């Protein structure tokens, strides 16, 4: 986007002499209150835990060890692989992937439909998709919980039309969490794909059609490759927050649907009270996200060429 509007003009430098003064506040605020804390968190993940929260300033690998190995109650048994935390991370990846796929399946056709409307109605459709994005996520998740609970309106409706005899037990299942993540981040998928489709030149499709390409072939081999950057951006915007989500698994799920977010929260706010372990889990989550973002940056760079 930025490259498009800037190209063709020389880079303007009307404020170049004071550039550093203009940038310093943002550097300082984000540097001191986010970059330094993240580095400190890395340090904390290598410290010894203090019971009831906090740390003792003594180097230790216990947090990462606890993540991977089970050494028994007193810590002197031969180490076995600890599957509990690996399972939680694997579940988070599966859930985030599932939410991304669902969002793509619903979000792409929606974005396409909106992008092909006449300019006036397009704004209305777009506005309708944008509103939920601005509504408080907690309220949206609570609303979802209200809707799908055992004797909630969804089950009333399903039993009312005779689809089921007994209420569908959705709450506390992985399905509910999946539904919650999908619902939470659906607008994040529609908006970037829409932005890419809006700039798509339908002359490409018409040319293919003149050469007798079937419609779905045009979609698959011409339109989708052109708008791919938008699709990838949408997938990342859904996948990344889903991976570290807290509200959906906490409100819609239960003990068996634990995700990374809940695991981390429990170390600081809950009963576990193990700060180094929470810091280590956060570092692992952050590394996973950085890998995804690096993959994205590389894909973007490739597309620019």
């Amino acid at each position, binding site marked *: *986007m930025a490259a498009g509007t800037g190209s063709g003009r020389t*880079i303007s*430098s*009307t404020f170049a002499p004071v550039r550093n003064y203009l940038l310093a506040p943002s550097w300082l605020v984000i540097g001191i209150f986010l970059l330094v804390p993240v580095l400190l*968190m890395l340090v904390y993940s290598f410290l010894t835990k203090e019971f009831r929260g906090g740390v003792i300033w003594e180097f230790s690998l216990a947090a990462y060890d606890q993540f991977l190995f089970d050494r028994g109650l007193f810590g002197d048994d031969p180490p076995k692989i600890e599957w509990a935390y690996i399972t939680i991370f694997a579940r988070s990846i599966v859930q985030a992937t599932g939410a991304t796929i669902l969002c793509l399946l619903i979000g792409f056709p929606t974005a396409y439909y909106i992008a092909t409307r006449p300019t006036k109605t397009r704004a209305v459709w777009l506005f309708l998709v944008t*509103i939920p994005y601005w509504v408080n996520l907690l309220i949206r998740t609570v609303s979802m919980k209200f809707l799908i609970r055992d004797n909630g309106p969804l089950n009333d409706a399903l039993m009312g039309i005779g689809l089921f005899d007994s209420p569908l037990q959705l709450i506390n299942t992985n399905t509910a969490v999946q539904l919650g993540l999908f619902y939470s981040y659906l607008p994040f998928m529609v908006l970037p794909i829409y932005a890419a489709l809006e700039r798509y030149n339908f002359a490409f499709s018409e040319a293919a059609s003149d050469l007798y390409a079937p419609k*779905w072939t045009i979609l698959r081999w011409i339109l989708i490759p052109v708008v791919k950057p938008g699709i990838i951006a949408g997938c990342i915007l859904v996948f990344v927050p889903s991976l570290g989500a807290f*509200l959906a698994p906490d409100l819609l799920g239960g003990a068996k649907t634990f995700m990374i977010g809940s695991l981390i929260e429990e170390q*600081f706010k809950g009963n576990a009270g193990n700060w180094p372990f929470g810091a280590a889990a956060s570092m692992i989550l952050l590394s996973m996200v950085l890998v995804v973002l690096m993959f994205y940056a590389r894909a973007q760079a490739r597309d620019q060429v």
Partner: protein
Amino acid sequence: MRSRFDIRHYSGFFAITCACLFILYAPLIVVMIYSFNDSLSITTWGGFSLRWYADVFTGPESEKFKLAAWNSLSIAVMAASVATVIATAAAIGMIRGGKFKGKSASFALISLPIMVPEIVTAVATLIFFSAIGFQLGTLSILVAHIVFCIPFAYLPIAARLQGIEASYEEAAQDLYAGRWPTFRYVLMPIMGPGIVSGFLLAFIISLDDFIITNFIKGAGVETLPTAIFGSVKQGIKPNIMALSTLMLVFSIALVTLSYFIGKRGADPDTTA
């Protein structure tokens, strides 16, 4: 619309779009309807009533909600204001600062709060404040909110600035206007809509935040999301639905406002 031979038309896409909107709105509409339910129980419909709205303002939990609403709004106004000022300066530095070394590093730093998962920011901030012995409370929430509001304010402001020709400022500077008057009387009026949308976006993002606030709020300080979360833990009560509906209406009013400001901003000054 024209025919099924229209190459833009794919059958089924309209149905999926309707399904998409249905999924997005159904839970919100259901909660809105049930917030007018007269019954004490959330399952049975007992007729239309505004009692839960009265309960939000005068009921046993009303003091808690009012204080939380005050905290939420005052933190959001302050955080969004500070973040907007910082982001405006940063946008001018980035986009009107010419070519410079570390430009992409600078952009990465500004967008860092968006890239780091919220829960990680929450953990890191909590650890940082506890390590330096900073008292957790309203001030710690405010600082954290300013940090994550900066990139959200930055994006619309920078996008707006990118669409403005530098010739306006160059003309002003040719006429011996200093940098501050150039900004104040030339650039700022044109950037106005971008600055307002940046502020509104930052404001909503601050109001919306639960995870980070929940980690660093300390004992006794609640914002609306943390107060609602605390209530919901014991089950969804009708007064929460009324409160949620009020917040929903407030958010929708803000989006509509920002939509019209954005529309007014789309004037011939923008070059594409």
